[in-house]
Each structure stands twice: as C-alpha cells, then as structure tokens.
C-alpha cells in the first residue's frame, strides 16, 4: 500500500511539472507533427504518402499554332490542342495532377508573379508567346518560366519536375529533328520545310496523348523502369515515414522518461526527503518498489497517450491490438528498468542530467538506426546488429512489425527480448541501489 502511495505522490509531482509533461507528451507529438507537415500528410497506410497540393498560376501566352502543319496534328480532330502552350496547359490541368497542384489561369505574367510574391500561390508557370513558333523553328530556343515562392521547397520542386518532364518530351523531338536533318544533309539529300514539319507533326502526334495522360500510368510506355529486387524486410517497408517517426519519437521519449523518472531517487536524496522516508517505519524495499511503480505507471500513461494520439490525429494504424499492448508493456518495463539501472551508477542529479541525456541519445540513435535507414534498399547487416544492442532497437523493430501487419507470433521475440532486458537491467539496478541505501 505504501508503495502505491509513493508511486502516486511521484506521479502527481511528475504531471505537475511542466518540464516533465513537455518531454513526455508535447515534444514527441510536436516533432511528429512537424515531420507530418513536412511530408504533407498523416500516417494512414491506406492513404499512403500524401504530397502537398501546391497552388499554381498558369499564364499561357503562347501565340503560335499547329494550324497549317501537315499530318496528324493539324488534321486529327482527336487532338484538341492548337499549340504547345495549350498542350502544356492541358497536361498541367489534367485530372491526374489535381492532387498535386491546384491550377488557376491568368492572362498577365506580372499579375501571376505578384500573386506568388503575395503568397497567394506557390508557383507561377509562364508560357512565353513564342513557345510554339520557336519550337517549330529548327534552331529556335525558348524558356518556360517557373516563378516560385522562395519559402516553399517540396511543392515547387515537384511542379518544376513535372514541367521539366513535359518540356523534355518536346525537347526530345527537337533533338530528333536536328539529328535527322544532319543525317539527311550528310547523305547529300535536300529536305524542304514541309517535310521538316511533317516529322515534327508526327512526333507531336506521338507525345500529345502522353502529355494528356500525365499523372496516370501509361498503358504502353516506350520505356519502363525496372529496379533490382530488394530483400524481404525492405519490400515490407510500406509504413508511412510519419508513422515510423511517431514510433521512434515515442520510444525515445519513453526511455527518457524511464531514466528521468527514476532520477527522483537522487533528487529526493539531495532534498533530504529520501533520508526522511528512511526514518519512517517504511522498509527500503517498499520505497524502491514505489519509485519503480511510479515510473512504470507514468510510462504506461505516456505510451498510451502517444499511441492513441498517433492513431487519432496522425491516423497511424499501430497494428494488432494484443501485440501492440503486450509490446507496450514490455517497452514500459524495460524503460523503467533502464532508468533504475542508469540511476544506480549516478551520484547526483547534476551528473545524472548529463549522463542520462547522453546515454539515452546514444542508445536511442543506435536502436533507431533501422528507422533512419528506412529509405535505403538492402541496408547493411551491421545496422540491424547495432540496433539490437539497445532495448530501443527491439522496441522500434517490434512496432515496425506490428505496423506492417505483424501479429503476436511475429513480435514475440521482441517482447521476450525486451523482458530479458528489463530483468537484467532491473536486477543490476536494484542490487546497486539497495547496496547504496542499506
């Protein structure tokens, strides 16, 4: 009973401390929130990785026309674009890109730039009036302007990439044309303007449907990308980065709470309340049990809040409830034992403040290495070995498995490993603390 009284008193003190609450709940949630904003979405597996929608102003000043050109482009009613500017406009406003960019049209390039400067839009794409004519001229050059808000990074970069890809298609035809003309001239033959335009028209006829289908998969791509097959773990990493970051943050701060929570033993010793506790008819073992219980209960509250918050706000699906619950208990026990172990080597809160921060950071980083290398295909084996040298590594891996759809049979080794860590750390810690206070 006295253990519970000590635990409740310690918890009351912890939750009254703004500093402790910040580190237990606010910072891990804020950090995840920041990454979530950066990656532009939640951690919902089903939604996948959501790119930010960028407001784009498109100014099509292209005055050129395919009219009068021979062949399919000018004659085929299926092709409703009358210029390259219009072709670009159609591609950029196609349905496939609506999730990435929100395009509105303007007539004046100055107005478009002004809107970007006022942060009413992220990007302005200004198609010059001589785009089609320059394109059709064998040696003509022209530039499409992408004017962006310098405070944005990801959205404009994506828009630039799309515009570049579309323009590359047109550039390719010009290169083809130049090479063709050079070859014909080298062979001593003459080619007239009509024949040149026929070649261009044929190329345009080929790329126009491709441009219109931008953003969706092409049925018959000329080029296909094949990547080397990765190993099982890598191919299973379909978890959203935000979910992994939340898991990593939660684990890091849970172990920090374990270490900081048990630090109250040192603080109470310095404040004189621990000796006073020892002067009451309360056995030393009861006092230490109360301290361990308070840290354990605090971590249970912390981990529950973080998991539920992640599920509700960041839409993270942590996985099979039973597996996550047992894993959380194992994480809780190992982090509380980790705290007792660390504190048993410390002599003062001053020393503990520095040492705990350092040790938790180093072990946290070692344990989280698989998260840091999430995007790496076939990460080196030593990463897995290093991460398993810290309890944080087993915890992170366990959550990774449950988020990938793993069940109890898939995470029982992680649970067992964490419990072994807990028993070992608790045993050493309690032995040392008992020795100090007996």
């Amino acid at each position, binding site marked *: *009973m*006295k253990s519970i*009284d000590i635990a409740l*008193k310690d918890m*009351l*003190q912890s939750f*009254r*401390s703004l500093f402790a609450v910040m580190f237990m709940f606010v910072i891990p949630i804020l950090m995840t929130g920041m990454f979530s904003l950066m990656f532009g979405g939640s951690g919902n597996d089903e939604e996948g990785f959501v790119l930010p929608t960028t407001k784009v102003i498109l100014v099509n000043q292209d005055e050129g026309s395919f009219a009068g050109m021979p062949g399919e482009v000018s004659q085929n009613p299926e092709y409703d674009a009358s210029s390259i500017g219009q072709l670009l406009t159609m591609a950029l406003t196609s349905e496939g890109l609506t999730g990435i960019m929100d395009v509105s049209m303007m007539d004046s390039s100055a107005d478009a730039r002004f809107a970007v400067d006022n942060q009413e839009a992220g990007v302005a794409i200004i198609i010059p009036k001589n785009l089609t004519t320059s394109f059709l001229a064998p040696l003509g050059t022209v530039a499409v302007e992408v004017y962006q808000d310098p405070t944005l990074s990801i959205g404009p970069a994506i828009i630039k990439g799309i515009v570049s890809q579309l323009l590359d298609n047109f550039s390719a035809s010009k290169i083809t044309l130049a090479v063709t003309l050079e070859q014909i001239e080298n062979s001593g033959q003459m080619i007239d303007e009509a024949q040149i335009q026929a070649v261009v028209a044929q190329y345009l006829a080929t790329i126009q449907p491709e441009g219109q289908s931008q953003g969706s998969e092409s049925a018959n791509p000329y080029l296909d990308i094949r990547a080397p097959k990765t190993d099982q773990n890598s191919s299973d990493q379909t978890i959203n980065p935000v979910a992994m970051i939340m898991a990593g943050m939660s684990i890091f701060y849970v172990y920090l709470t374990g270490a900081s929570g048990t630090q109250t033993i040192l603080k109470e010793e310095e*404040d*004189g*309340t621990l*000796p*006073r*506790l*020892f*002067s*009451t*008819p*309360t*056995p030393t073992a009861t006092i230490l049990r109360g301290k361990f219980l308070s840290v354990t209960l605090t971590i249970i509250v912390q981990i529950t809040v973080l998991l539920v918050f992640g599920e509700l706000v960041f839409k993270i699906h942590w996985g099979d409830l039973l597996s996550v619950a047992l894993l959380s208990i194992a994480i809780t026990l190992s982090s509380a034992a980790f705290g007792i172990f660390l504190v048993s080597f410390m002599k003062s809160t001053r020393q503990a403040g520095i040492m705990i921060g350092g040790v938790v950071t180093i072990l946290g980083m070692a344990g989280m290495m698989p998260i840091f290398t999430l995007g790496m295909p076939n990460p080196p084996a030593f990463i897995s070995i290093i991460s398993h040298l810290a309890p944080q590594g087993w915890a992170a891996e366990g959550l990774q498995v449950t988020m990938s759809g793993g069940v109890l049979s898939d995470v029982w080794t992680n649970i067992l490993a964490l419990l072994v860590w807990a028993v070992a750390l608790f045993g050493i810690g309690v032995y040392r603390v008992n020795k100090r206070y007996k």
Partner: protein
Amino acid sequence: MSNRIAIQTNNLHKDFGEVYAVRGVNIEIQSGEIFSLLGPNGAGKTTVISMISGLLKPNQGDATILGHSITHEPLAAKAALGVVPQEIAIYEDLSARENLMFWGKMYGLRGAHLKQRVAEILETIGLADRQKGRVEKFSGGMKRRLNIGIALLHEPEVVIMDEPTVGIDPQSRRKILDSVMELNKQGMTVFYTTHYMEEAQELSDHIAIMDHGEIIASGTHAELVKIVGELDRIELNINTESDRVMETWKNTPGVEKITAENGQLHLLVNDSNLVLPQLFEKAAQVGSRITSVEIQEPNLETVFLHLTGRALRD
C-alpha cells in the same frame, strides 16, 4: 516525568573510512524529558541522531527507542519516533496538506484518522489557512513549521529535533522553542540537538555536551555549571596583537584558562574583581591597552571552554 527510558544508546560508534564521527556515545533519556545534545558544528550530533533514527548503521553499539533496538527492530523503533531533520525535508511542489497526507501514510495513518490528524497538525503549526498553497511559495519559517508538523503526525512518544532553529528569524525561533516546550508539556520526550547554548539552557531537563565525536559532560544545567565551580568568564578586547598579552596573562594568579577567538580574548578566572586590575597592569607593561571588558556568570559556554579550551561557537 516517568521512569521509563525513552532513548538509550550503548557505546555507539560510527566512522566514515579513516574519519571517525562518533566514538562510544552513551546516552540515557527518560520518558517525558527534554534532553539536549549541545556541541559545536562537526561535533557528531547529527551522526548520533542519524544512527538513532535508523538512517545510519552504527559500526559498533546499539540504541533502543522505548525498548526497541534500532538494529534488530528498526521498524518498531522508527514507528515510535518522530524525526525533525536539520535541513527542511518536504516536497516543495506539493501543498502543505498534500505533504502531511503523504507523510501521514508513511507513518501508517489511514482514512478518517489521517484526515483528522492532518487537520489538527495544520492548526497546531498555524498553516490551516495556507494548507492548499504550494510549499515552494512559503516563507522559511512556514517551511520549518511544516517540517516539524510532519514529525508529529503519528503522535510519537519520542521526537528527535536536529537543530530545528538553524537559519531562521528570531520570531520563528521563539515559536519553535515555545512549541517544543508545549509538546513536552503534552508528555512527549524531546531529544534536541543545538549549538546554541541559550536554547539548551532554556529548554532542557538534561544536557549532554559533545565534542569530537564524544560526550564530554552530561547532567542538568546546574550540575554542568558546577564543573567550572566559582569561575568567572571574562571577555576582553585589546588594541594590539594578542600573543604577547596572552603570554603575560597566562602566569597571572587566578587565571585558569585563556583563549583567543576572532581578536577577542576569553579567560576563566577565580575572582574577576581580584584578577582584572592585574590584567590591566600587565597589558600596559607590554604596551597594550584593554578596550572593553565583559564579565559573565558561569554558564554552558564557560563549561565548554573549561572542558575543551575552545569557545562553543568555534
């Protein structure tokens, strides 16, 4: 006062490696009395109290609280004791009431009885109207009172107070001394340590004087003063360095002891009326002049000076 023994120590020893803190301390405190352990800082008073209250294990010897051995029945011994530590040992981020409720539980109080005792103590220490306020916002005197109140929650028969008046204002000090006497009137045995001679003199039925880890004298105030007999204590200031004057005065008839402290000279003399003229004369012979003189009746300070050759506040 009953004849029951409240605290008894038997040859208590404590050392910290090479440094000995307490050597063979024997104390017997009767139930219902105020017993003061008087000594300068570093004499070993807190070490004795720490052993009696179970915070330190003696290297040798034992102590009993109401017959319970601190080594064999530590929980029973602790249950009979209320300890007021020298440093304020309370939770600053809890309220006065929360502190009392928690410490009451640590002493085994529960339910309605606990609430009743907390309410009574809050009244006793004068914090009833501030019971919900966080202790961190309390004045030093209020914290001291709460520090004492915690030790009284479980109505112990024996209260140990380790220098409870250190570093507080005279008004709070007066309140604490009055409350000690009030507790004693209610039947509590009080074991009080101090390095203030006046407190020991005012409060105590019995006093033990401690120095360098040993009890050098004990008894009632009257018995202790008798040790120095009819000696007078004279405090003098001179206008030159003290070494030459002390050397001259040492051999003056009637001068029993002479020490210097912070430029002031302390003498124990048989009859101050006879000795003083000689002191003036001999000082003048070596070119010194006495600038102030104070003659004191024999007291505990005199006893300590007599026994150790040093002033109590050294």
